[in-house]
């Protein structure tokens, strides 16, 4: 494993995530960083390439609007504390976003150097350099505001809620996060491809965010079951809902109960948090064409599954996952089966384990081509065709605006029902961590304005 954070590794085990002790032999530990950390010399050289554009396209491309040229200039001048603060002022989860953001389609993709056919500035790696330094040096930038006597409940301890909670604490509001699981950090802890970030780094970051003090996390409490939504509404001045998405969707085809057919999100969480024995798996199939599918194929390969195929009913060019991720997977040796529709999972009949995926080819109108039935052999099948929407509980509250897939919010995360705000995947349908951070932060500003009657800066 390549962990570049010797310093952080030697830090004492965080006291707060009492339940969140990760086994050291987690399966994800085998992954090296796809984008390794910069040395100081590399960071300074790259920082000095930055043109320090005005109203830079990279800023516009960042959902949290980090002043990217300014933080980069501060790396060049060895003002690393200032650099990190510039990042955190806009994005308190800047350390994980530096690793997990699809910078190729955000800031880096919009760097002006692309327009002159020069390599764009490696903004993600520079952000990682500055934020890692802040974490490792233990720099603290923020203090909780003077107590206001107002209380805000946040449901879910993922990126949206953490960003919201931190900003609310800066205003001096009391915050309580309700998290049904033992782990904090949401998908940052359980869902990020380990060649981008491992679970321990996510927990480190949560710890760093909690430094501001006064953020209470109630683990093991499921809102809607252990506490009624209406109780929160009664007891708190505002409620922020950041519960993300639900369990993996499945196709509803024969054989789904076979062993080793699993939802991709569930599988990813297992190998990130546990030690899995995958020695018997040589052939893997991932069903889907989105970014979770793209993560899953590369992860299976990295875990030692030598023959991995992505089965997608659309074309290679038409997949919803990022092309830069697919190209990386292809280079690593992943196969693609395009315009291919699974019709059943095939088992061995003895111990009910999956042995293959029965498929049919589709024509350009997505109609099955007669006689094209075939079986792709597989010892493990991961299904990455989306996740359930967690809207049922919220439907019981009048006034919360939603459509079939998500809660509808305004720019400040307001749901339409007084006191109720939302952000993250629940509200955006499933985007990046950086979107969740922006939505959580902006909801905090709106909540602050609403509960105090003040316009926040």
């Amino acid at each position, binding site marked *: 494993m390549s962990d570049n954070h010797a310093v952080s590794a030697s830090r004492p085990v965080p006291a707060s995530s009492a339940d969140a002790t990760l086994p050291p032999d987690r399966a994800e530990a085998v992954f090296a960083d796809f984008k390794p950390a910069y040395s100081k010399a590399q960071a300074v050289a790259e920082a000095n390439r930055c043109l320090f554009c005005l109203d830079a396209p990279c800023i516009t491309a960042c959902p949290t609007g980090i002043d990217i040229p*300014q933080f980069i200039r501060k790396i060049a001048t060895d003002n690393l504390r200032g650099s990190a603060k510039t990042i955190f002022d806009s994005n308190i989860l800047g350390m994980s976003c530096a690793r997990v953001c699809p910078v190729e389609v955000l800031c880096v993709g919009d760097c002006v150097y692309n327009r002159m056919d020069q390599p764009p500035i490696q903004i993600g790696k520079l952000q990682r350099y500055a934020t890692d330094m802040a974490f490792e040096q233990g720099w603290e930038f923020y203090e909780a505001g003077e107590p206001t006597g107002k209380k805000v409940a946040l449901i879910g301890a993922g990126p949206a809620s953490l960003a919201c909670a931190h900003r609310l604490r800066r205003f001096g509001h009391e915050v309580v996060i309700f998290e049904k699981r033992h782990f904090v950090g949401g998908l940052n802890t359980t869902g990020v491809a380990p060649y981008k970030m491992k679970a321990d780094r996510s927990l480190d970051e949560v710890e760093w965010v909690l430094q501001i003090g006064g953020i209470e996390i109630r683990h093991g409490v499921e809102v809607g079951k252990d506490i009624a939504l209406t109780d929160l509404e009664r007891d708190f001045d505002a409620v922020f809902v950041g519960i993300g998405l639900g369990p993996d969707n499945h196709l509803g085809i024969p054989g789904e109960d076979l062993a080793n057919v699993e939802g991709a999100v569930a599988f990813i969480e297992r190998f990130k948090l546990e030690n899995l024995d995958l020695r018997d798996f040589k052939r893997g199939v991932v069903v889907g064409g989105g970014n979770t599918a793209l993560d899953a194929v590369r992860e299976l390969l990295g875990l030692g599954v030598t023959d991995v195929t992505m089965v997608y009913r659309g074309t290679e060019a038409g997949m919803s996952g990022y092309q830069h991720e697919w190209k990386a997977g292809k280079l690593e040796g992943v196969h693609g089966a395009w315009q291919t529709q699974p019709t059943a999972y095939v088992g061995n009949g003895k111990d009910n384990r999956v042995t293959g995926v029965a498929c049919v080819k589709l024509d350009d109108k997505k109609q099955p081509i007669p006689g094209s039935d075939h079986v792709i052999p597989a010892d493990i099948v991961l299904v990455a065709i989306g996740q359930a929407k967690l809207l049922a509980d919220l439907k019981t509250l009048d006034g919360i605006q939603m459509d079939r897939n998500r809660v509808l919010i305004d720019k400040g995360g307001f749901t339409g029902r007084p006191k109720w705000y939302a952000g993250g995947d629940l509200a955006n349908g499933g985007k990046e961590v950086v979107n969740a951070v922006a939505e959580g932060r902006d909801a905090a500003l709106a909540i602050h304005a609403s509960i105090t009657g003040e316009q926040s800066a």
Partner: protein
Amino acid sequence: MTAHIATPLKAKSPIPDLTSNTGGIISPNPFWLASAPPANSGDQIKRAFDHGWGGAVWKTLGTPIQNVSSRFGGLNYRGTRAIGFNNIELITDRPLEVNFREIADVKKHYPKHAVIVSLMVETEAEWREFIARSIDAGADGLELNFGCPHGMCERGMGSAVGQEPALNERITSWAVKYSTIPVLVKLTPNVDDIVPHGLAAKRGGAHGVSLINTIKSIIGVDLDRMVLEPRVGGLSTNGGYCGAAVKPIALHMLASLAREPEFRIPISGIGGVTNWRDAVEFLVLGASSVQVCTEVMLRGYRIVEDMIEGLSTFMSDKGMTKLDELVGKAVPSYSEWGDLDLNYETVAKIDADKCIGCQLCVVACHDGAHQCIHPQGDTFVPRVDESECVGCNLCQIVCPVPDCISMVKVDNGFAPSTWNEHTIGQGNLRPKKGVH
């Protein structure tokens, strides 16, 4: 259910007070815009103050002139644009009443920021009039432009005054006589020794000096047209050189005055300041404030955010709470060559784990120094012959890898001894190296 409340924040060290005092001109931080295009108008200076600049020296007022086109030239080096810069622009070309009205407006809206008015006129009557109008407008200080090395000096002003101590002293004394606010004299570097000119300003009664103005220069030649740059039709002229590349010259002149026992008045440092680190160098060599022009022209007012943060962090790290604790801190280390310890010996050490094998140190040492770093057959890491190494630093300067070559002190058993001691028959000098 488990509950957790994270521990409160650790106590922070106090934020240092960056308030700067240069001869009675107070500003919330030591970062001023120099008298130049970035300080040409009230609108610009207000925006600069909004970004965090602590003061501004207004673009020089005098009898308004007519400028040429073009005006600026840049010196590029190995792909980096404008490490040096020159200009043939003159003083303000805007109507005086507009300038004075805007000065008053800026001071009204930014009472705590320092607005210093730069002046360049000829007769005593003119100096008297311009000073009165500046004070009426609310200026916090005056800067007498005795530095401009192009155009104005041909008319007997600018560096024509700064190069002549008697003239400098006389005009300074007029200004001081008519002024109720602090007077700084801006000195030209186009002199052989800055000290007499600083002393002339002091004798004239100046409350401080600012230095350096630009250096007489030709930035380059358009080789297709065979015309100097910046080109004005088929001709050009010498301009004033500035930007990052002039910092060493500015630091020397600054330190020369700062260590001069007869001098001892405040200095506003100018010349090649691009970031907080440069600014700290000026401060520790005796400046109470620093003025910036070229880097703002190249990157905008927003560079000041990093300068304020960097200075503040640096002072916190050093346990300093007030700017005065920093000012002049390195001046005592500026000595005469004859007092340097000739027995102090260093040699180069190459960190084999960091070396990338470029052999730049080998060629630099062989062709440019004392032939003591040699290529080796069995490894790409060169070998330093320490018995020949004179400790000149050239290899360390040329090495592209940070911290790969270090200069390590050698304990040679000789007590410190200087040339000045040697010339009077004292001390015991170590044997010379590198004289094969």
